[in-house]
């Protein structure tokens, strides 16, 4: 296996693992975002 193939495999791993982690980020922040949107007591949208 050449170096370029190894490097591409590393990049592919980073991308897939990164996306998996990012989906968790999206779910967790999305859940928090719902709370932020519902909490309107100090909202000043003017």
């Amino acid at each position, binding site marked *: 296996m050449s170096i*370029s193939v190894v490097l591409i495999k590393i*990049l592919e791993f980073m991308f897939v693992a990164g996306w998996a*982690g*990012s989906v*968790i*980020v999206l779910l967790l922040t999305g859940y928090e975002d719902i709370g*932020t949107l519902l909490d309107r007591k100090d909202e000043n*949208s003017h």
Partner: protein
Amino acid sequence: MSSTSNAPTGNNRVRIVVATSVMLTFISYWRAAAVILNDLGSSAFYAGGIAEQAIGKSAPWFVLGVMLFAFAVRAVYVESCSMFVRGGVYRVVKEALGGTLAKLSVSALMFDYILTGPVSGVSAGQYIAGLINDTIAIADARGWVPSAIHRMFHGTPQVGVNATAVVFAVAVTLYFWWQNVKGIEESSEKALWVMQITTVMVVMLLGWSLFTLLKVGGHLPPFPTLANIHYTDESLGFWKHSKLPHMFGILGLIIGFGHSVLAMSGEESLAQVYRELAHPKLKNLKRTAIVIGVYSFVFTGLVSLLAVMLIPDDVRMKVYSDNLIAGLAMNMVGPQVLRLAFRAFVVVVGFLILSGAVNTAIVGSNGVLNRVSEDGVLADWFRRPHKRYGTTYRIINLIVGLQLFTIIVSWGNIYTLGEAYAFGVVWSFVFKTISMLVLRYRYKGVRNWKVPPNLHLFGIEIPIGLASVGMVLLSTAIVNLFTKSVATVSGLIFSVTFFAIFTFSEKVNQRKHAHSLAQMKEQFQLQLAESVERETVGIRPGNVLVPVRDYNTLNHLKWVLEGTDTREHDVVVMTARISQFGTAAYGLSTEQVFSDYEQTLFTRAVSVAESFGKKISLLVVPARDPWSAVAQTAHNLESSTVVAGLSSKMTTTEQAFLLGSAWESIPEPKRQFVLQIVQPEGKVDTFRIGPHTPTMKNEDVVLLHRLWLNVTREPGLEDIHHHDILTEALTRFAHDFGAHDRDSIVKELRRHGTEAGPLPVRRIADQVPTVQPGPAHSDRDDEDRDDEHSDDGSSSPFTGSE
């Protein structure tokens, strides 16, 4: 208190209070979202087309993926803002990785900013040229184009799309160059207005598209598998002769993702607006992030998807690759004239939002270069203000020069521009995220929020979320280096050139600054203060505030010192260090606020004070808007009078109006003060800022007096005062204005505001019979009139306060 003759510190240095916080007016999260979306939303006009040209029909899935991933990138920005109020790339990278990498990251960011202008300008030009050509083609098909013109053009007359785009982009860039040299004010109001119109367009576009889909049906784009990704030689760059992209499925996804990443350009503005967000800041930042996330996902993501579903394959890339939304408008169901009208609306909205992005690019680049220049990384020569307008015109000239060069070299090729643009976008995100990762271990200060999830193993925190975002960005940026040859070559040349300029300039400046710092320290003693307070400056209430900017025009300071006994009233000379939109995102150190320019300015001010033998206090205030800075400073220092010089750009009335407007935005309770504007020839105009007794015309006084005489002749009304007449008149006016007569009053006031000729009071006064006042009617209310201030140059700076 500072003194030119006897400094309190016991040496000969003059104390200068340097406020380290930029004075800003705070905005709601809706406005903040509008400011960001003016940049982020503009990508919708070209990102989908560029992505499809690179990777084929499955591109919308990648654009949607990018918009989804953008939510995670936003989390990184929220964390950085929770650590640094001005959490821009330069500040964060410098804090984490040091000056060298900060310079490199800012070079990539500059590449991003500088390309935003050409990409947006050319894209707007493409939309306009497309509309012109299609309108002519439709008119020609209906036989509306005269045959002579037809013969002249050897067929249907058409404009050159790329050439038109270049001409338009150059014109828009030059327009905003001039506006920035003159120093336009950035307003969130304008951004909000543009986004409201854009929202109308988006709602119409989505509604009509869904209706079309229901009517004629449509197919989803092919899913992003290796078989469905169609590379071109351009989209593979240095790998065009390699088998690698065809061997690995996931690599294909990274390539596709890399070609779509420019759809989230503009995210970096999140750090810039944070400084200006109203309380509660972090919560409002999250709300802003949600608004921009949802909006850009719907606009950029869904529009790209619908374009592939509704525009036929044979024309989508051939005709509408550079103006995809226009293509969508033309392929809806409905009469052709209605579709053409909607397309014209799309072009108008595109023109507004993309032109705004051209301006944002100039303002943002100027802000970043100002910031690094303030840090001593760029020679002070660049920061020398324009003689007339006071703007950093040399930096603006450099930016616009580079943008014009880019537009002409690309010759309107939006694909090349967009591909190169992505280089700056992705690398500035990479630097930012890696720095945030490093800061998880190195930064010990306050951090109000962290990107989740975070694991704790043996007391060590493992930032899984942050690392995940970083891995996606880094892998995409590395693959982009191979697949985007034009971007890699141009981006590297640009970044390395800028990096070399920064490094060389910094070395030269370090020597120069060491010398000037030593000089400055001999002359001035800088005292840092987070905010401007009277106690900090060491002055008494009722002082005179003198804003100065140009050291060649200090006549108003001389006028103040001539007529002021500084033993009775303190004189404060202030200068507002104007920070552009971008710089508000970064931290300001003493050297950044108090540069050699301020040093020269204060040296001159001190020598003027010395020539009068009078004391002055010196103050530097960083601000976004000079009028807000003056109004807030006068308020904080409890100044009775502000004395300004005449602006080269406006009349005294306009200056007073702007200061009055800035005063209105200060929260209650607030103090009134007098503004005096000293003209070069010595004439002084005086205005009261805040509610005050108006200057009454002689005719008004005569009418009031006649009415008063007549009223006091009525039985039982002998003791009525002049002010009772005014109270009654104003009460009736308020009643009429609030009820049935509002329109006619407004109409009448408008007429008198625009028409010359006899004033109404004269006509009414003529109808009121003249009654000679008897001895019993001596003017017991004459003090009412004495309250007015004079408008001539003989008044002292304290006329209004005493």
